[in-house]
């Protein structure tokens, strides 16, 4: 079965057996049905890629290959960061996969500190794969579980539409300050993934929005362009420069434009008539 077909089946199954999720899903207005279906495909492609990339990443850790594991850390994470607004709907998986040491009382030593950042901590701070095997296996298992749940999920339209702003808020809160990937300093990779995820939602909704508010579309598109161009200065052959290479003036520009995007995109739900 193709991924697209499986997704359709999943949506049907979900509609029939009412998922045990904590939010009430509103009916998608007619003009949002196609963008949301397209977005679901985008997310599923990323979670499928997440599994593939995590498989290699975990294999490197278990083989004791610190160098390869380090090289695979940031690109693997990008698959998760791009679809964060949906991934976050499953809070158990989100905290297992993506919590930071700050979220735990005993910080790095806390047994509840697992997932990407725990592996990052071991690989960079300890420069070793030692003792990471179990956490690595859990990461892969959680990634698989995430994909399975997403395929079955009826995407709540307000979460999809709201996701564009949520991703920019993510950037504004932790990526712009270099707090997210504090051991590896690969924050700009995450930044790029959040950015792409947000822009994807906007681009999918653009035809609907353009009819309602062309000036708004123009302004948002301009800010996306500025962020994209600024970030592009930090591209390298493999991905992105370490966070500390980010210049003070560029940081200010990114901060302002990301805040402005979060502000503008926070009106998307209202503009599209969603509660």
């Amino acid at each position, binding site marked *: 079965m193709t991924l697209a077909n499986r997704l359709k089946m999943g949506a049907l199954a979900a509609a029939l057996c009412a998922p045990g999720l904590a939010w009430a899903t509103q009916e998608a207005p007619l003009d949002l049905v196609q963008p949301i279906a397209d977005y679901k495909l985008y997310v599923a492609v990323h979670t499928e890629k997440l599994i593939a990339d995590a498989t290699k990443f975990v294999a490197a850790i278990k083989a004791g290959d610190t160098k390869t594991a380090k090289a695979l850390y940031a690109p693997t994470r990008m698959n998760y960061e791009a679809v964060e607004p949906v991934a976050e709907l499953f809070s158990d998986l989100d905290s297992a996969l993506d919590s930071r040491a700050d979220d735990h009382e005993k910080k790095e030593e806390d047994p509840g500190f697992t997932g990407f950042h725990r592996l990052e901590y071991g690989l960079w701070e300890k420069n070793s794969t030692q003792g990471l095997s179990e956490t690595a296996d859990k990461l892969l298992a959680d990634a698989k579980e995430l994909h399975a749940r997403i395929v079955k999920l009826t995407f709540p339209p307000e979460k999809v539409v709201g996701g564009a702003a949520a991703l920019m808020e993510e950037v504004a809160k932790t990526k712009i300050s270099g707090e997210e990937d504090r051991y590896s300093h690969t924050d700009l990779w995450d930044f790029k993934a959040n950015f792409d995820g947000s822009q994807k939602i906007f681009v999918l909704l653009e035809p609907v929005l353009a009819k309602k508010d062309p000036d708004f579309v123009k302004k948002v598109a301009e*800010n996306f362009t500025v962020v994209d161009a600024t970030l592009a200065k930090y591209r390298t052959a493999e991905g992105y420069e370490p966070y500390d290479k980010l210049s003070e003036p560029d940081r*200010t520009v990114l901060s302002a434009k990301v805040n402005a995007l979060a502000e503008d995109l926070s009106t998307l739900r209202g503009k599209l008539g*969603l509660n």
Partner: protein
Amino acid sequence: MTTTKTPSCPFAASRRGFLLGAGAIAAAGGGAGAAIAAESEAARPQVADAPIAHSDARRRTPFYGVHQAGVVTPRPACGIVAAFDLVAANPEELQTLFRKLTERIAFLTQGGRAPDRDPKLPPADSGILGPVIEPDELTVTVSVGDSLFEDRAWLKPLKPKTLMRMAGFPNDALVARSCHGDVLLQFCANSQPTNIHALRDIIKNTSDSMVLRWRQEGSVPVVPPQPDGKSESARNFLGFRDGSANPDSNDDALMEKIVWVGAGDPDEPKWAHGGSYQVVRLIRMLVEDWDRTPLGEQERIFGREKWSGAPLGVLGGSEHDIPDYAADPKGDLTPLTAHMRLANPRRPETEANLIVRRGFNFSNGVTKSGHLEDGLLFLSYQADLAQGFLAVQSRLNGEPLEEYIKPFGGGYFFVLPGVRDESDYLGRSLIEAIA
């Protein structure tokens, strides 16, 4: 625009109003006794009721004028300074920001109803002051920093003559995160939530061009009205009256000379006339150590009596008495190293160094060793940075007070000239001066 409470005003539908209404119904059925009981209950607030403001909550400080408000206007109880970095790549972007700031400040300082929006959209206003924003004597004063000019070739030639980047003094321990900025906003109001509301409003409305760099809140103790109607200088966190020797801020001619840049400053760019140099210093006070210092020593450190604020040796004096240093050349009454004597030796040649101080006290948190992080949000205004603050601070370097203080942040800024009327905007003279 009105801020008088009318029956349609949502404030009228408070719990107290409801209780009074209930009392009236009870009175109809149960006689006068019930009505009295209900009334006295109505007069007794619940634990979390909003404290009743002083009548000042509805007073406004005018926004339009030759100078910005918040410099020589009386300092209210609460203040915040917030420093921002700017994304303004060209004069047009800077002008857009200045116009936006003007529009927001004109509204916030005069008060009114927050606009209603479709409930599907995020609200236009944070709502922390309710649907009707009381002016609360709010002032928002906009100033610009050295980096605004230095980082932009098209602004560099227009930098005010003595504006510079703050550099550390011998007793400083500057923290990069708490220093400098392209723009500084100073908020002053009778209550801190009014300032916070204004800050949030401005952040929301300017997020595409300003990024918050640091902020500091502060307040001064309020005092009950005096029977003789006189007022006194507020006390700082070392327990001393602070501001006693300030030049008279009601003397316009004096303020033109000491505070405002004007025609008397031929070297200043013309656009800067009506503005002022602003110094912000975040100064931590080691209050636990201070509280273990004998009173006599405390008084000698400042040169003033703690309760009255009078200069030492003036029996039964007041804080407004003037010390006679000429009659005390060896410092028997006022030590030669006393803070106020160093700050202002009162010699003809130091007349040019007068400044106006308008600070607030802050209490930030707790250090790793369990000490209070309290201090002074020092704010001063002068017509010349070098002649004013820099000259005074260089005389203070090494003073005995340093044992109890540690400056860690702040910066030097230039207060833009005032907004004359509705057709004017903040920074217009600067924008128009760009070649």
